[in-house]
């Protein structure tokens, strides 16, 4: 009996021990699984961010290129001058007195068949609410009302100060929202969850209302409407995207595809309201959205008018808001030289775009002043990125080439400082080699060689007629750039924001100094996407608030807004305007976002195939066709410069490695196969186009200054030549001609930009549909497409 019991005990003990060990094993394994998911999530985030910022850099580079040409090129013929003018005219639509007359919209007739909202002015709260409802139901506001609203908006904005001062005495609570980027779901959700604007419920929207999402127009209209209805309680700040030059850009490589349709449940108290709206896949620049939504006969008149007015409205947006003299709200950030007094006094309407500084007109007196200015500031003039000595990426337009480092040199070009002789000499050299380079390019592009230009004479400035007030000073412009583009960083100090290409990175000491100087207690800013929709930093003195949820992809991040009461304690509310995500497990959510990120990354890799191949070959000294995975990672980083954890990503990008060795050529071929399906396009050409498509689009839009939607073959060829030689793209003349001809589908000597881009979309779409269909495209749901690229 005794031994029986002890055996039983023994077994019981063994079983218990077994259970314990088994459980421990399962837990151990599971925790590892979760950790790996978390790592994947972080890597995915890095991918999206780095691609987004690289895209921004591209745009800045392009802009720099054009700016540089304008500053240094003297056209020697009438044609060249015209060509340049058309390319570089800052003001897309020249100022005319008609802008002040209201005749523009009054003559637009609204047909009886129009069932959308009708506005009358002065606007009433009901009108604004009706707008929200109408847009929720996917209606579109007629161009006449749009223009009317915009004129009223501009009138209202023009009498506002640069810095809006708000008090919690009037409305007890103030809600601050960050970037919306055309994502209407999020705006509607905020109003649903937080309540519509009212005298008791004040709102501040902190910029970046447009671009990327598909409903930028609707968001603007809603925001402007509420501002007109509740002028004391509803406030807007300008963001870096409220800028027609930024809007010109096509896209940033992100794709957003959500399924479903809208249905709201006002009866429930559910936190998550939105079943997501279908966003038209891919690339939305705000300009494109307006032109698409407001086409009117062949000439897109309404779209143009709207854009022209908006260009002006954006410039009239206030720059910042202050609550109770204690909380400063602005879009980007600050720098160590941010001067709120100067910002309050300057004429903000003169800041046309933060992408490029428009200098004063060259008159005799001013030329004199400029010479002095030049000598003082030439050392600070950024080394153009396309010069040989500055080819090392990532280069910033603000980086000082090879000027010896000094504390000032590491900041974004700001204070023109008196320069020692050495710098002058250096800059003279720089300008000389730049001029030579320029000459070479223009020769290549088919323009006759130009003589050395000591002094830039820019005919493009003829827009500023004599008698007009001078443009903003460089200092004023920089102050605005700083507050619209800067990002906080953890380290102390203030340095040039090389990632964005504008503004700076500012440290906790800069924040502290600024808050002390102006007796403030908190800085609220936006401008950066955060996984939780918000983030505190700098000892909780800086709050980033970002209101576009699922910004990169469904499930990528939450949105948030912050409420402030009289005590000015921030209270954050988060949301994610997509019910579907809540039903997915963490694994599925991450997996989905990850797939999207990897796709974008693979596209980028493909676009750099030739460069990658030569890097691989360099490291394959024995010419075995193989390289180690370490070399693979190093090669990728040296070409793409995205700062991504390539070794962590390797399992997702490389399936074919055997041991530690990768057959790089076949890896590249596989990448290409994924992206291509058109045998009749040379893969290298397509690769180049892919890489530069957003820039191409921008160039097209710049050339197509009258927005006819057409550019001539010749213009395309010349521009592409110029562009490609500076972007270090190797394309023969024949190739360019072939390309131009193949894009000209109806053979009339003109390229329809939209068709070109549409063709691109078709290429992409059939690529993503896989190579299952043996390269017989063009018959998909798009219906009447322009036909295959390259087909006769």
């Amino acid at each position, binding site marked *: 009996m005794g031994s029986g019991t002890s055996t039983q005990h023994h077994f019981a003990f063994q079983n218990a021990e077994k259970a314990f060990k*088994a*459980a421990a094993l399962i837990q151990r394994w599971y925790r590892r699984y979760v*950790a790996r998911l978390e790592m994947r999530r972080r890597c995915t985030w890095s991918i999206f961010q780095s691609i987004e910022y690289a895209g921004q850099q591209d745009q800045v580079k392009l802009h720099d290129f054009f700016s540089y040409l304008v500053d240094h090129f003297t056209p020697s013929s009438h044609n060249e001058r015209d060509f340049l003018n058309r390319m570089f005219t800052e003001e897309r639509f020249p100022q005319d007195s008609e802008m002040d007359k209201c005749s523009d919209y009054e003559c637009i007739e609204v047909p009886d068949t129009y069932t959308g909202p009708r506005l009358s002015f002065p606007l009433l709260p009901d009108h604004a609410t009706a707008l929200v409802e109408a847009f929720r139901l996917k209606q579109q506001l007629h161009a006449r009302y749009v223009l009317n609203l915009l004129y009223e908006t501009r009138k209202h904005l023009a009498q506002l100060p640069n810095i809006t001062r708000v008090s919690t005495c009037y409305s007890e609570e103030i809600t601050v929202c960050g970037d919306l980027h055309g994502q209407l779901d999020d705006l509607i959700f905020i109003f649903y969850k937080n309540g519509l604007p009212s005298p008791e419920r004040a709102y501040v929207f902190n910029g970046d209302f447009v671009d990327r999402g598909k409903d930028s127009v609707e968001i603007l209209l809603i925001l402007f409407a509420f501002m007109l209805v509740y002028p004391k309680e509803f406030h807007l700040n300008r963001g870096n995207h409220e800028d027609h030059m930024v809007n010109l850009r096509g896209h940033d490589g992100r794709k957003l595809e959500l399924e479903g349709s809208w249905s709201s449940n006002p009866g429930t108290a559910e936190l998550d309201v939105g079943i997501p709206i279908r966003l038209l896949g891919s690339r939305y620049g705000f300009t494109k959205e307006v032109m698409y939504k407001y086409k009117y006969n062949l000439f897109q008149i309404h779209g143009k008018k709207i854009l022209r007015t908006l260009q002006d409205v954006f410039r009239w947006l206030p720059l910042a808001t202050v609550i109770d003299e204690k909380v400063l709200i602005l879009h980007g950030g600050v720098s160590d030289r941010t001067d709120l007094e100067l910002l309050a006094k300057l004429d903000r309407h003169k800041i046309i775009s933060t992408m490029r500084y428009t200098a004063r007109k060259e008159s005799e007196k001013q030329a004199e002043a400029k010479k002095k200015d030049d000598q003082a500031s030439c050392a600070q003039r950024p080394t153009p990125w396309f010069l040989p000595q500055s080819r090392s990426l990532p280069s910033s337009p603000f980086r000082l080439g090879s000027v010896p480092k000094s504390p000032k040199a590491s900041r974004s070009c700001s204070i023109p400082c008196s320069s020692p002789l050495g710098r002058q000499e250096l800059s003279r050299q720089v300008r000389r080699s730049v001029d030579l380079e320029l000459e070479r390019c223009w020769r290549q592009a088919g323009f006759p060689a130009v003589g050395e230009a000591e002094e830039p004479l820019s005919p493009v400035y003829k827009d500023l007629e004599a008698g007009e007030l001078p443009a903003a000073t460089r200092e004023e412009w920089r102050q605005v750039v700083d507050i619209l583009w800067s990002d906080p960083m953890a380290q102390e100090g203030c340095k040039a924001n090389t990632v964005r290409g504008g503004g700076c990175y500012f440290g906790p000491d800069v924040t502290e100094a600024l808050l002390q100087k102006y007796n403030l207690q908190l800085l609220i800013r936006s401008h950066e996407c955060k996984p939780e929709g918000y983030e505190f930093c700098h000892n909780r003195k800086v709050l980033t608030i970002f209101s576009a949820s699922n910004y990169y992809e469904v499930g990528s991040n939450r949105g948030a807004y912050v409420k402030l009461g009289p005590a000015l304690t921030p209270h954050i509310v988060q949301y994610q305007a997509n019910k579907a995500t809540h039903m997915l497990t*963490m694994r599925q959510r991450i997996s989905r976002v990850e797939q999207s990120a990897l796709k974008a990354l693979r596209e980028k890799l493909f676009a750099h195939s030739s460069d990658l191949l030569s890097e691989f070959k360099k490291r394959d000294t024995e010419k075995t066709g193989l390289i180690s995975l370490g070399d693979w990672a190093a090669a990728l980083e040296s070409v793409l410069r995205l700062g991504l954890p390539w*070794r962590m990503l390797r399992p997702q990008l490389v399936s074919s490695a055997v041991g530690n060795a990768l057959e790089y050529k076949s890896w590249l071929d596989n990448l290409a196969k994924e992206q291509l399906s058109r045998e009749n396009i040379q893969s290298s050409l397509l690769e180049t186009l892919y890489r530069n498509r957003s820039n191409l689009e921008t160039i097209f839009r710049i050339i197509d200054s009258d927005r006819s939607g057409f550019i001539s073959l010749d213009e395309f060829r010349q521009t592409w030549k110029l562009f490609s030689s500076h972007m270090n793209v190797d394309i023969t003349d024949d190739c360019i001609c072939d390309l131009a001809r193949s894009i000209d589908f109806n053979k009339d000597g003109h390229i329809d930009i939209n068709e070109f881009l549409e063709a691109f979309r078709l290429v992409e779409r059939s690529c993503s549909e896989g190579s299952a269909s043996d390269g017989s495209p063009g018959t998909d749901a798009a219906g009447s497409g322009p036909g295959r690229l390259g087909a006769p």
Partner: protein
Amino acid sequence: MADDREGTVAELQKKIKEAFEVFDRESNNTVDVREIGTIVRSLGCCPSEGELHDLIAEVEEEEPTGYIRYEKFLPVMTKVLLEKRYRPIPEDVLLRAFEALDPAKRGFLTKEELIKYMTEEGEPFSQEEMEEMLAATIDPETNAIHYKDYITTMMIDDS
């Protein structure tokens, strides 16, 4: 041979650096101590919680600051990887673990059983961990986890 080994160490250290940098939010070569587990596990290791605590003790400052510096982390982690410590768990071993909890050999565990084992035995889960695992594993119709299928799915996902 020596070259090989150096090459391997160099490559390992690059991996460690990458993983560390993913969590180095302030770009100042430190990470929050609470992220160390994630970093270690994503480098291929599968330590128990106890083993993890020991590792953290090795890389912490004398006066714990809540942050781990890269300089301290690198040598320790290099050693861990070279010694191939904390090996991952093979599929068949995991299967046997589940089977040990299912002596009747039904092929599944009920939701209640899973909760009991995971929160009372071994190195118990937190409530959050438990909820997440349930969401991902329990078949809503049978309210049970069919562990053989589950393991197969997870292993594919994990590769």
